[in-house]
Each structure stands twice: as structure tokens, then as C-alpha cells.
């Protein structure tokens, strides 16, 4: 969208015409109240009505506005939070206009990760809706002079049934806003939900099938310049020289400057080429011929690293859980299993590569289009520009565009950081786009891991003990010592509910220069597959059906058992398979949700395919069942890519994969033909949904391969066609 320099009241007129206009990030000045002062207009400035609170704005007539204040990257939260508010406010979703908010402290914390949004916002947002409803209800009762308990609400109206009176929320809003809020409001019972738990269409998808949705990549403020950054091909290095003149000689290149990005305390230098268009910037970058001194990092080599990690896994390491006496049980028998699993480093590879658009102006104000899972960057900018913190939100405006995926990667604001430095230096609007190669090679990455398992069995091959020792870098202790404590994130999804008499779960931290970062389901993405594949090995050795084995050893956990029973039924688990078929399952809890999956394999004319995956999800109370299913389907594909496609490997300090030709993604022809997702209905607190569908899939796949071929694979990724 081009710049708009019109008067504010004209904006309000325009805003009424098209809802999509609200959502578009654009350079947006308007004159304020006749004064010759420019104001940056944000989505909030276009909304008419009484703001009952920052999230709910009620106009006298027409749709109620609800703010989508949590960044949307595919998970459906754009509608998810308003749906929770609407439920308790007692309005229908078609009476609501959802508007993507700015980043602002007014909305509280807006960062996303850990499949946390619904989990943390469910109760507060219900209370917000219910409290607002209560104020409207009391206002009507006072107006009519009737007892509050004789009044009720329905679809945006307050009703007094005995007299037949009714009044809309819009007519009450201005007075209701003056009410003292009742903090002890009663929330609805689940059986009375009209919106929560029902499949609804996502209102953001209309603009996602016609090219109108605004992604960070699409910001086009007036006078925009385009930037690309050349960085050290190894993880880090000291810039020793580059050919500025050659790059400047490319037509359209306007500036070249050094920038840095902070990756877990390490400052990585880059050379920014700024040009009038994207092509010129890229052409200029090719001519830089940058020289780097990178001896320290040139030795990073994943082959050696995995050998080191495997050696380290022989050490006892730090205790996470010890039950009974594993060492004793293991020493008492020769009937054992001893195996090692290895999972690779990976890239996040969001479809929308990392990018940012920033305009630091001559007058020391700033506007940002933050393609970020942590968009509240006001403080950082204010500090750097010398703006007092209490003026930060006036002088710094931050748009939250839709994001083309995040998967944890966008919780690091390094592309914003680079772009900000360029704009600050030039005082011009700058769009920085990382190339796909930058995105794949520069990290930070998902951790690679080694898992050493041991189990002991009695003479009937029934387990007497099991041990897992996990070796990995940790995310939260990069660049510092973990001081003998296990970092909180690393043991996710190692299922200590399994009722083995003797159990030992341990961790060894491996230090490496490779930067790692939150990657969809984080350590559940590595622990889940390895652990559940080994459980399968134990089940097979015991001579029991793997599903029956899990039910037996998880019998103390009724939710796990229910999920397994449902999977047994829905997948027709006990049906006999043909000669060239295989099946495998896994069950993993992560982020408050239990997911079990069954994978079916078929070998036909020498080609192996995945005709079907069946998933059962217990995420407690859910908002939109269709979105739980969509996220689970997506997690299955994401997890299959991790299991079957390319790893990130390092040689001489540099990632060997660069673009989608060498770092391949699962495609349509390789995807399961059918994915079924079944949800468990219960009254448990909401669990996460964006990640828990991922951890079981690789294990279920490895287990299905073993079931079909007799070959036990213990290293990811592998080629499905070679099994």
C-alpha cells in the first residue's frame, strides 16, 4: 500500500469502507486536529466505538471490534482469542469484526512460543469477556429498574424476558464503560459454550486466497529502499575486507554499510547492500567479494561433533529422574538392549524468509513492520534512540503483519536488528529480506542430539529397567556455563510415566559453536522420536503388541490410556496387514497435550508410500476443533520432513545445505494420502496445539519401518525408498 497523506476524518471514512484496510501495514501519516503535526496512524486509529477495554470496542450500531493482539503465523490465533472473548461476552462471531492490533504494552505480553497462547490466555480472556458482559447487563438492569438477576444476554443484546424488553450492547456501551467492574463474575459452563469447541471458518483466510493478506514481506512504505546482507559463510568470522567500489558500481545501489546481529551473545558482522530495488541489491552483493578471518569457526564439523556427542553419551551425566535401581537391574542380567539414536541439526525454513521493514525518521521517531514472534521492540529502539521509555509507544509504532510461518525462528529478532541499523544510519525506510540461502545457512538451528538407551529384561523378556542418556547442546545456556544444572528445556517429553520398576533419565550437555534455537516442539522434537522408538524396541523384544505394551506400562495415567484406546479403535490397529505393509505408533506428551499417532506403510512396485496416518489428540478443552486438526496435520508433515528429508550438516564451519534443492522439504507426492485426526472430549484445561502433533510422528514412522522390514533405523533422517 502506498503512503496516504490525508486528513484523519477522511481516514475514518475510508476505514468504514473496507475492513481489509485496517489490517494492512502502511506508512500512514495524517494531520491531527488541524495542527500541522503528523501522526502515524495505526489499526487502532480507524476503529469507531466505545473501547470497553483494549480488546473490545463496541460501536452504537454495527459490528463489535475485537483486537487480534497475538501474532498470527498460521496457528489461527487471529480468531482464537476473539472467539474466547466473544463466548463470554455472549456475542456471535458474525457480529464481530476482528482487527489485527499493533504491538503495544496495552495488550500485555504479545510474544508467542511454546504453544502457549490459548493455554495462558484462556482464563484471562474469558474473564475479560464475562466482566464486560456483566457491566452491560448491570447497565441495562439499572436503566430498566429491574433486578440484574432477571436479565440475561443473547447475541449482543441484554434481555428482560418477563417484560419483553431488550437493548443492544451498542446502546449500552457508553454508560456501561462507566460501571465499576465486577471482578468476581461467573464464567460459563462448558456445556453452555456456543463458540468454543465448534468448528468455525477462519476470517483471515479470505485474504489468504487472493493475495491481499499483509505479510512483513509486503510492507511498502513510500520511498522504500531494499537491503540484502552478506554474512560470513562460516558461523562467524572477522570481516577483513570487501570491494565496496565494485558493489557501488551496480546501477541502483545507493549505500553499503556494516551491520551486526546478536546471536546468543555473539556479534555477527554483515555487509548491507542498500539499493533502489531488490535485484540491484542482490547484484551489488555478488560483487562484494568479502574476505573473512574465520579460523576459530572453520573447524566446526558435524561428523566429528556427532562422534564427540556419542562418546560423551557413555558418561553417566546429570540426573533428571532416577526410580528404583537401574544400575542394579542392568548388572543383574545379560538380557539387555543397548542402542544409540542420533537426530540431526535442522533449519526452521519458514516459507517467508526472515525479513523486516523499518523506518527510523529524521525526527527520531520510528515505524516498524515486525515479522516477529516477539514484536514488542519499542523498548530496545527507545533505548538506542535516546527516547524516554514513557514516550516509547508514542514515538515508535510497530505493525504486526501476518507471518509466513515462524516455528520458533521468529522469536529471534536478528533480521529486525540488522534492518534497524541500516534505517537508523540512513534515516530512510528500509526493507531487509534474507535470501533463502541466508535463511538456511545462517541459523540459529534446531539442535542435533544423541540418545543412548539401555534396557534390562528378565528371562521372559519382560523389562526390568530402562535408562536414557541424552546428549545435546542446550538453548538457554549457550555462551555460558550451566553450573551442573539441567537446563529446563532439554528433557521435554521424556516420558517418565512408563511404569518400569527401575528407570534412569540423564543428561549430558555438549558445548558447540553452532547456535541453536527454539524449533517447533523444541526438545520434544528430538526426545519424542528417540524415546518412543526405543519403547517400541522394548515392546517388540517383550513379544507384546506395541500398543498393548504402552497401555500396560502407562496404566497409571488414564489420559494416556484413553488416547491409546481411541487410536486402537480409529486406526483399526488390530487389523491384519498385508505382506508388504507395516504399521507403527507412538504417544508423546508435550506442551500440556497428549498425542498418539499411527503410521501405515505400503511397499508397492518397489516404492514405499505412507497411505495413512491416524492421530488422536487430547489437548483438553479446545477452541476450534478444525484448527486443532489443521495444526496436527501440519505437524505430521513438518515432522515427516524432519525424518525423511535433509539434515543441516557442517563442514569447515559452514552449513552444506543452502536452498530447497539441497535442503529439501516433503512435497505433495511424498505426503501421506490421508491424515485423520481425532480429538478427545474432556474438561481438562487447554493444552498446546501448535507443536504437540510433531514429536510422535518420526517415532511412529521408524516403528512402522521396523514392523514392515524388520530393519530398525536409529538415525534420522533416512530415505524412505531405501527401507
Amino acid at each position, binding site marked *: 500500500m*502506498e503512503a496516504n497523506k490525508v486528513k484523519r476524518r477522511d481516514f475514518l471514512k475510508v476505514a468504514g469502507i473496507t475492513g481489509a484496510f485496517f489490517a494492512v501495514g502502511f506508512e500512514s501519516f495524517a494531520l491531527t486536529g488541524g495542527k500541522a503535526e503528523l501522526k502515524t496512524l495505526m489499526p487502532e486509529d480507524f476503529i469507531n466505538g466505545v473501547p470497553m477495554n483494549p480488546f473490545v470496542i463496541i460501536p452504537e450500531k454495527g459490528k463489535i471490534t475485537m483486537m487480534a493482539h497475538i501474532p498470527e*503465523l*498460521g*496457528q*489461527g490465533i487471529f480468531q482464537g482469542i476473539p472467539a474466547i472473548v466473544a463466548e463470554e461476552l455472549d456475542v456471535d462471531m458474525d457480529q464481530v469484526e476482528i482487527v489485527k492490533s499493533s504491538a503495544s504494552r496495552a495488550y500485555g505480553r504479545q510474544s508467542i512460543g511454546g504453544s502457549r497462547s490459548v493455554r495462558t490466555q484462556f482464563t484471562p480472556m474469558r474473564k475479560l469477556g464475562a466482566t464486560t458482559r456483566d457491566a452491560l447487563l448491570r447497565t441495562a438492569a439499572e436503566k430498566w429498574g429491574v433486578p440484574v438477576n432477571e436479565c440475561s444476554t443473547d447475541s449482543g443484546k441484554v434481555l428482560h424476558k418477563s417484560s419483553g424488553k431488550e437493548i443492544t450492547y451498542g446502546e449500552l456501551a457508553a454508560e456501561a464503560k462507566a460501571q465499576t467492574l465486577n471482578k468476581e463474575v461467573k464464567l460459563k459452563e462448558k456445556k453452555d459454550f456456543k463458540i468454543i469447541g465448534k468448528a468455525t*471458518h*477462519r476470517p*483471515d*483466510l*479470505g485474504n*489468504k*486466497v*487472493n*493475495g*491481499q*493478506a499483509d*505479510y512483513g*514481506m*509486503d510492507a*511498502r512504505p513510500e520511498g522504500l529502499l*531494499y537491503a540484502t546482507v552478506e554474512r560470513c559463510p562460516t558461523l562467524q568470522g572477522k570481516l577483513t575486507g570487501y570491494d565496496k567500489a565494485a558493489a557501488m558500481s551496480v*546501477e*541502483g545501489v545507493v549505500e553499503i554499510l556494516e551491520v551486526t546481529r546478536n546471536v546468543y551473545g555473539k556479534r555477527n558482522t554483515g555487509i548491507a547492500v542498500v539499493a533502489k*530495488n*531488490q*535485484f*540491484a541489491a542482490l*547484484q551489488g552483493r555478488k560483487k562484494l567479494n568479502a574476505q573473512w578471518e574465520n579460523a576459530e569457526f572453520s573447524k566446526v564439523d558435524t561428523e566429528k561433533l556427532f562422534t564427540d556427542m556419542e562418546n560423551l553419551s557413555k558418561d553417566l551425566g546429570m540426573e533428571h529422574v532416577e526410580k528404583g535401581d537401574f544400575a542394579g537391574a542392568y548388572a543383574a542380567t545379560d538380557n539387555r538392549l543397548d542402542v544409540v539414536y542420533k537426530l540431526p541439526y535442522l533449519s526452521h525454513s*519458514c*516459507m*517467508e*524468509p526472515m525479513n523486516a521493514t523499518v523506518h527510523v525518521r529524521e525526527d527520531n521517531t520510528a515505524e516498524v513492520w515486525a515479522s516477529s514472534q516477539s514484536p514488542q521492540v519499542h523498548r530496545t529502539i527507545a533505548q538506542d534512540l535516546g527516547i524516554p521509555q514513557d514516550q516509547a509507544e508514542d514515538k515508535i509504532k510497530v505493525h504486526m503483519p*501476518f*507471518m*509466513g*510461518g515462524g*516455528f520458533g525462528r521468529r522469536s529471534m529478532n536478528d533480521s529486525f536488528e540488522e534492518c534497524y541499523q541500516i534505517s537508523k544510519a540512513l534515516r530512510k525506510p528500509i526493507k531487509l*529480506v534474507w*535470501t*533463502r540461502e541466508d535463511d538456511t545457512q545462517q541459523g540459529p538451528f534446531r539442535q542435533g542430539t544423541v540418545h543412548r538407551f539401555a534396557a534390562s529384561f528378565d528371562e521372559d523378556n519382560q523389562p526390568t529397567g530402562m535408562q536414557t542418556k541424552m546428549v545435546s547442546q542446550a538453548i538457554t545456556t549457550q555462551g555460558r556455563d550451566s553450573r551442573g544444572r539441567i537446563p529446563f528445556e532439554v528433557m521435554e517429553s521424556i516420558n517418565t510415566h512408563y511404569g518400569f520398576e527401575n528407570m534412569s533419565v540423564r543428561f549430558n550437555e555438549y558445548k558447540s559453536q553452532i547456535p541453536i534455537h527454539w524449533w517447533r516442539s523444541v526438545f520434544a522434537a528430538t526426545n519424542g522420536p528417540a524415546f518412543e522408538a526405543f519403547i517400541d524396541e522394548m515392546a517388540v523384544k517383550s513379544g507384546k503388541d506395541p500398543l498393548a505394551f504402552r497401555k500396560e506400562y502407562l496404566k497409571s495415567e488414564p489420559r494416556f490410556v484413553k488416547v491409546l484406546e481411541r487410536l486402537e479403535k480409529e486406526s483399526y490397529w488390530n487389523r491384519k496387514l498385508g505382506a508388504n505393509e507395516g504399521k507403527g505408533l507412538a504417544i508423546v506428551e508435550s506442551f500440556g497435550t497428549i498425542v498418539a499417532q499411527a503410521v501405515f506403510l505400503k511397499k508397492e512396485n518397489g516404492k514405499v508410500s505412507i497411505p495413512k496416518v491416524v492421530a488422536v489428540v487430547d489437548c483438553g478443552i479446545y477452541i476450534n476443533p*478444525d484448527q486443532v486438526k*489443521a*495444526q496436527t*496435520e*501440519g*505437524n505430521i*508433515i*513438518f515432522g515427516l520432513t524432519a525424518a525423511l528429508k535433509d539434515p543441516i550438516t557442517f563442514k569447515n564451519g559452514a552449513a552444506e545445505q543452502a*536452498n*530447497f*534443492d539441497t535442503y529439501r*522439504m*516433503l*512435497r*505433495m*507426492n511424498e*505426503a501421506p*494420502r*490421508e*491424515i485423520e485426526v481425532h480429538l478427545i472430549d474432556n474438561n481438562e484445561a487447554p493444552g498446546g496445539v501448535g507443536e504437540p502433533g510433531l514429536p510422535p510422528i518420526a517415532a511412529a514412522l521408524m516403528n512402522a519401518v521396523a514392523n514392515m522390514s524388520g530393519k530398525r533405523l536409529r538415525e534420522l533422517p533416512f530415505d524412505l525408498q531405501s527401507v
Partner: protein
Amino acid sequence: MATFKLNINQKSYEVEADPQTPLLWVIRDELGLTGTKYGCGIAQCGACTVHLNGTAVRSCSIPVSAGASQQITTIEGLSEDNSHPVQKAWLDVQAPQCGYCQSGQIMSAAALLDRNPNPSDDDIDQAMSGNICRCGTYTRIRKAIHLASNEISNGSK
């Protein structure tokens, strides 16, 4: 730099650009049709798919000079109001998640149905495997293509 006449969505544009500039950047940055997306720059992901004389092509790998005087359709030109059978089917099955790849997916699907209104699953595999979806919406896309195919064949009866 040179001047090129482009015909996009049945509208004529004149742009100044280096002849080697990928059509993608001209469409997005010079003409402001940002529905067409950058994903890889090497014709591997399909996010930049547009129609060139009715055929699905990757606009990241076609120089603007080769697009001149051809009929180009982008996602914005598919319909005025989300009424193309593919768009309708996409919404019916709620295919998009993040949505970033979906312009390209939809353009590939529309081109497929244009030349083959009744594609088999294998036909779909063949036509759609050039489009990556990182959110993993493949099973819904397949469903949507079958749905759109039904609507097209019912509509033509």
C-alpha cells in the same frame, strides 16, 4: 535499464527495469501486486507461481524481458471476489494456515484444472509437487482440488 510493457491481469503496465530482473520483483515491488511471494529464487518452492499465457510458471526465474508482451495472471487476477472455484474450494476446506505459499498453490491448481478439469490423485501429485507448503496443508489442498474439480464439472453440465 530498459522499458517493458507488461500485461498483467488484463491491465497494461510500463516499467523501467534491468532486463535480467526476475519478473517476481517487478510484479511485487514495482507494481505492488504483493500476492505473489518470494520463497527461494530458484524455482524450487512455487511461492511465486503466476500464469504466463495460461501456463503456471515460476516468476522468480523468468526475467522481466521474457514476460514482456505476454499475458500474465497473478493471484490478484484470478477473480474479483474469491469466486474462482479453486478459491472457493480452498476456503471450504480451510486449506491455508500461514497462507504464504497459498497464492502459488492456488495458481498451480487453477492451471491444472484449466487443462485437466478432472485430475486424478497422480495428476495432482504431478502438478502440485513443485509447490512447497511448510505448514503441511497438502491433504487439504488435495481435497480442495477434487472439490473444485467437482464444481467445475457440475457447472459445465
